[in-house]
């Protein structure tokens, strides 16, 4: 029988494939960022202890990437025997930016920009994700961004799930 943890891991793997597919296409960046956020959110949920008997609010909860993914990255580094610690704070900032791609995460209305739905911008204009330049997209190609994606890919493609739940 599939556990919640395994189910989230399987969906995260499928979202990763969609993210990689979209990354090769000449489409607005919002589409691959949308799948990036969905992939990483489900990956994080796959590793949550409480997912054994998850409350409904956890299943629907967003805003978990900044809280959970840095610990997954650290565990990846420990497992591969990385010797020189990279700057984890830059990775935390990036994780927070990825959480903010989800339309319900608005940082107290300070950050209505998201990868999915139009929003009313500071200028009073209605902004469209497909036309928006997301700075986070460029940060994925920096060293912290590459380290983050590498760790997330490893824990998605070769899950280190706690099986006895």
């Amino acid at each position, binding site marked *: 029988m599939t556990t919640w*943890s395994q189910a989230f891991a399987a969906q995260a793997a499928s979202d990763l494939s969609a993210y990689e597919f979209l990354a090769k296409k000449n489409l607005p960046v919002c589409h691959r960022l949308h799948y990036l956020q969905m992939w990483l959110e489900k990956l994080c949920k796959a*590793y*949550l*202890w*409480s997912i054994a008997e998850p409350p409904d609010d956890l299943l629907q909860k967003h*805003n*978990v990437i*900044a*809280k*959970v993914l*840095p*610990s*997954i990255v*650290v*565990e990846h*580094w*420990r*497992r591969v025997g*990385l010797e020189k*610690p990279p700057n*984890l*704070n830059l990775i*935390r900032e990036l994780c*927070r930016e990825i959480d903010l791609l989800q339309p319900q995460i608005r940082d107290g209305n300070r950050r209505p920009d998201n990868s999915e739905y139009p929003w009313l911008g500071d200028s009073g204009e209605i902004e469209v994700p497909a036309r928006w330049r997301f700075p986070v997209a460029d940060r994925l190609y920096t060293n912290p961004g590459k380290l983050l994606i590498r760790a997330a890919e490893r824990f998605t493609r070769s*899950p*280190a*799930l*706690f*099986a*006895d*739940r």
Partner: protein
Amino acid sequence: MPHTPDKGQIARILADAHRGFDPGIVRIIRLVADSEQSEQDVNEPVKLLEVNPDTSPSGIFPIAFGPDPPRIPFPSVVIEVTEGEFEKINAGGMPLPDGWRLGETLYPSPF
């Protein structure tokens, strides 16, 4: 017969590694099962509570990993909280997962 380290040793190995990768961690406490028998079970994870001002104050999120033999022969769980959340846990205002309690402080070293 190969020597299997106990969970206390494994907790220290994990705590040292995490501190090495994340200098923002200000305190690491081992969590243990309420029952000694449960804690001895090989399927019961090694559990660390890490206090880190750089994490977001969003509550108790235990993150669970499978074993990583031979170095880490047990499953492990990490809970990262802010200093304010740690004070609430200490004061009983923020419960740990059922059946777990605070154990020894691994960092800073009590010695």
